[in-house]
């Protein structure tokens, strides 16, 4: 089984539109959206959710007000300033979490700010009164859905939650399980932006990473950082320059850079209003347009299939 991960260093390069367009071209595959922080692929693939599953992130400290003697030891040892003495901590009520430790009594109690708490458990270890327990925290959901283009595993992390890396790992595991079940040869994964923990979790062990970039100084800068990261994890990289004709000079510079680095430029996609139109109508580009961008994506897909085989064989 092979896995194609589409990443971009930064959001907004057209990564998700491209994944949807590839999804409409590839056969026998499973789709995964690992951008769990701001999942968007479902907007283009119109999934019918078949199963909803809870995701538990790191635990958070909870203080039992009846046992607490207000000695203040926990606040001393907490390095994240997550313990407040009395003033009700501001709790996020965002999707999928309600660690409401806030029994608001008239006497001030020590409380845990669930946003600041990293779940290290140091307070629970040191509280002399045994008043602190660590409770695992419902941090989001992941879903298996049916789409016109094949099964999709996607997720949504609750607001202000950490642990997106863990949720990414969960999504990838499920995608692999589904791919095996369905005898699919390929998983196409929409990766998270950036180079932080969610990207690291989505990179490890993929067959090929396609980095989507734009011909701008910022795009180039982000490309360099993400290529370094992929290198660090020994994942082969192919590059796609989106809207290359908006700044042809910059595109040429990026191509020259790729050549120097030994990176294949698998495709160049021109600016085309059809892309925005497809997005607004919420359909994959290649399912609704025969325009210049759609044609370029088809050529990209041909070249990616070759790159995938190459990467797979050299593993």
């Amino acid at each position, binding site marked *: 089984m092979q896995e194609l991960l589409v990443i971009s260093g930064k959001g907004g390069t057209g990564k998700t539109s491209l994944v949807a367009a590839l999804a409409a071209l590839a056969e026998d595959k499973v789709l995964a959206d690992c951008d769990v*922080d*701001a999942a968007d692929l479902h907007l283009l693939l119109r999934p019918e959710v078949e199963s909803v599953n809870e995701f538990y992130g*790191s635990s958070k400290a909870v203080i039992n007000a009846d046992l607490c003697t207000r000695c203040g030891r926990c606040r001393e040892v907490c390095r994240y300033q997550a313990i407040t003495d009395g003033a009700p901590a501001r709790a996020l009520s965002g999707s999928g979490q309600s660690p409401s430790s806030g029994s608001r009594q008239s006497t001030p109690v020590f409380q845990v700010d669930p946003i600041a708490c990293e779940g*290290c458990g140091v307070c629970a270890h040191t509280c002399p009164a045994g008043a602190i327990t660590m409770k695992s925290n419902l941090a989001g959901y992941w879903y298996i859905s049916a789409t016109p283009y094949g099964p999709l595993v996607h997720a949504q992390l609750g607001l202000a*939650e950490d642990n997106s890396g863990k949720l990414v790992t969960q999504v990838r595991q499920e995608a692999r399980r589904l791919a095996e079940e369905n005898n699919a040869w390929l998983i196409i994964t929409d990766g998270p*932006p950036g180079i932080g923990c969610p990207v690291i979790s989505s990179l490890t062990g993929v067959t090929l990473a396609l980095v989507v970039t734009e011909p701008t100084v910022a795009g180039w*800068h982000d490309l360099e950082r993400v290529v370094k990261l992929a290198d660090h994890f020994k994942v082969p990289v192919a590059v796609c320059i989106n809207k290359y004709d908006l700044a042809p000079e910059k595109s040429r510079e990026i191509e020259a850079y790729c050549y120097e680095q030994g990176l294949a430029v698998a495709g160049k996609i021109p600016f085309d209003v059809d892309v925005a139109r497809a997005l607004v109508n919420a359909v994959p580009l290649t399912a609704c347009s025969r325009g210049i961008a759609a044609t370029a994506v088809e050529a990209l897909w041909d070249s990616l299939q070759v790159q995938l085989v190459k990467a797979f064989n050299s593993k």
Partner: protein
Amino acid sequence: MIITVASGKGGTGKTTIVTNLALALARKMPVQVLDCDVEEPNAHLFLHPEFQEEEEVTLPVPEVDSNKCDGCGKCSEACAFHALAVAGGRVITFPEMCHGCGGCALVCPQGAITEKPHRIGVVARGQAGRIAFAHGMIDVGHPLAPPVIKAVKKRAAGEGLTLIDAPPGTSCPVVAAVKDSDFCLLVTEPTPFGLNDLKLAVGMVRELGVPFAVVINRSSLGDQRVERYCRQERIPVLLKIPFDKRYAATYARGKCLVEEYPDWVAAFVGLWQEIERLVSQHARVAGN
């Protein structure tokens, strides 16, 4: 005053807003730009600051004295992040996993654990003309952004205007950036993606209790749904920047709108005046 510019997602033009606003206002008042998008800081590519100093950001990670350690394993039991393992009576540490909580040193019965600083990124500070500038950058391969963001935010000066370029998304790094701001500008695009991400971002700032408004970028490439949503939710839309191939080319070369199209200066000054008005309105409503 601290204004944070955020968006549910990257690539919507956060950096464009931050840099143009900074350049438009720097003639009138002291302005500071803090780029907290520490995974991919880009503001410096447009403001071209001269960097004067660079400082490492470190986390305290454990160092185990093998003469004192008897391999009891209490430290690895206590570590919630699996940054310590005991194998064959010896402790192995994984500094990339460590959150620097200090728990292992606290629980070690032999007093065998001390802490040493482990580099996770840098903060660089400098000056871009009249604009004071700082940004953070995590080391490639190191997953922990919030400590680097906090280190950048420590550079916030008291006077004048501080503009923070936040990381994308709505998870912990963004919260670390938006927290304690006086105002938050959410940059979005008029597409289904833009709307979806905007709704998430609105949920986040509302929970943090920071007053906010919206800027719509590439406003001519899309539909009306974002504006309709803002109207329904009574969220002010303070500025719209249409898509223009010339603007895209300006951006591609690392130039700012207000430099090449001076007409935009007034628009960004107007944006600032609106923000000032909304901040004082919010303060009145909040009763101080």
